[in-house]
């Protein structure tokens, strides 16, 4: 029994990798080959799908747009959440518990509910089709998440750290940036990871709030699928490329992931 324990995670990982392999397999085939023959690996290996993406600006701009608003969003979310999480972890104040739950309710709001009002609201303030509009709209679910995760990490830091620093004559600002932030660096890393992740994978709001100038890669993909027939090879190549930023981010934070989850806040 114990000897075969490794079998369960192995089978699970194989199950996870199969569709990803199929996507990569498709991305190296020509569209004609995909439609006409069924094969487990490309018969006529081609990189033309990738070449097309890297030379056509509507394609590669999609990636740049997606990365731009995701980075904006991560920076805004973490910057705003840091002081708030500190307040929640250290102080009691009027309405703190209600405020905390109200923040969480926004993580629970179905984006479909907000799509239309967001469209009208951002159009009326002339932010429609800008990176900042998407970044701000993603704050809806990323700020509550960031506050939640950071609060968990900050509560784990004993309050004596703050008190000792004040006794040593540190001002609040110096203490916060010189001592406190480095102490919870792992927590900030995890928070940035999750903000990046949720902003990167979201499409409904990103698509609703953009037309051309800030169009995310994911939306470019849906458009191609409907207009120029069904260019499966191109679609597969574009899909494969969207996995890469996530894979890079995971690689960098792999040691923190388990720890971050251990805080019980995600």
């Amino acid at each position: 029994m114990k000897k075969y324990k490794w079998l369960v995670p192995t089978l699970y990982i194989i199950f996870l990798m199969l569709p990803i392999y199929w996507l990569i397999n498709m991305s190296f085939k020509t569209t004609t080959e995909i439609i006409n023959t069924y094969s487990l690996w490309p018969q006529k290996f081609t990189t033309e799908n990738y070449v097309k993406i890297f030379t056509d600006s509507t394609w590669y701009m999609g990636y740049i747009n997606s990365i731009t608003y995701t980075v904006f969003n991560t920076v805004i979310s973490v910057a705003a959440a840091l002081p708030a999480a500190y307040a929640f972890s250290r102080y009691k104040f009027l309405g703190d518990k209600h405020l905390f739950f109200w923040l969480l309710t926004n993580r629970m709001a179905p984006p479909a509910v907000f799509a239309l009002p967001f469209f009208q609201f951002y159009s009326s303030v002339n932010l429609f089709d800008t990176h900042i509009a998407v970044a701000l709209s993603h704050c809806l679910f990323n700020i509550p998440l960031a506050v939640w995760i950071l609060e968990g990490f900050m509560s784990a830091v004993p309050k004596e750290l703050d008190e000792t620093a004040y006794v040593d004559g540190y001002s609040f600002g110096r203490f916060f940036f010189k001592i406190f932030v480095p102490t919870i660096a792992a927590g900030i890393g995890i928070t940035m990871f999750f903000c990046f992740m949720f902003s990167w994978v979201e499409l409904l709001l990103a698509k609703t709030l953009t037309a051309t100038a800030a169009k995310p890669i994911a939306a470019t993909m849906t458009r191609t699928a409907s207009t120029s027939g069904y260019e499966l090879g191109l679609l597969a190549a574009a899909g494969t490329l969207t996995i890469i930023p996530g894979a890079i981010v995971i690689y960098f934070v792999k040691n923190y992931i388990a720890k971050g989850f251990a805080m019980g806040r995600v």
Partner: protein
Amino acid sequence: MNKTINQKAWFFVIPVFVLVAFNAAIPLMTVVNYSFQETFGNNVFAWEGTRWFKQILQSERFHAALGRQIAFTFIILLIQIPLGIGIALTMPKKGWGVPVCLILMSMPLLIPWNVVGAMWNIFALPDIGFLGHSLNAMGFDYNFTQQPGDAWFTTILMDVWHWTSLVVLLAYAGLNSIQPAYYQAAEIDGASRWATFRYIELPKMKKVLTLAILLRFMDSFMIYTEPFVLTGGGPGNTTAFLSIDLVKMALGQFDLGPAAAMSLIYFFIVLLVCWVFYNLMMKNEAQS
């Protein structure tokens, strides 16, 4: 931790408060506004009272979508939670296997949702997809674009593929926080594998599992992009979950009043369930 009472802490919360209020309160007010009015275009509105709410609550379309949504959420919770725990229990605890498992298992979580849908679409196509082709070769009559049962099967399999890892990671973190002394004590007492699980591991995982159920409930109840790309809600309306139905109503048919009323009812259901869970979770936290 004993917290100091300090009303000035509000100043720290202001940026978050402003950003979220700007994002949540203003659009939500728009929705509330629409839900009580009839629109004639050109910003002409007429007061309709609770008509849209009554209409939605009595409409068969909403009942059907809600029924499908509840069934879907229930099924995926029933599969993902036990499966996630099972995988977490069998994962290596140290050595090279840990980072390999963590990295590979996190992969589905970081793929944009429509790519997940598109990926499963080409994976499941009956003629050229691996899954569809294999099932048909084994003698099943499988076609997810035409048979409702197959569409459900594919959607559920896709969600299991996409999100079980989240449960695994949470459960794994919960298991890792158990001190070795507990296991030694269990061994001395001659506890069976099941008893160890039931009386040591499960209680220690209670907090992360509540969180896992909460997160999976919320996200599966709001699911939109993946089934939309995979099946488009079809065949017919058989996989049109609440969000898909709502977007169809709001952006497709531009029935703003009923769509807004439906949004509020929808949001209220999610909120209610989450509130119950949140309180349970906080109670657990207070106990431990």
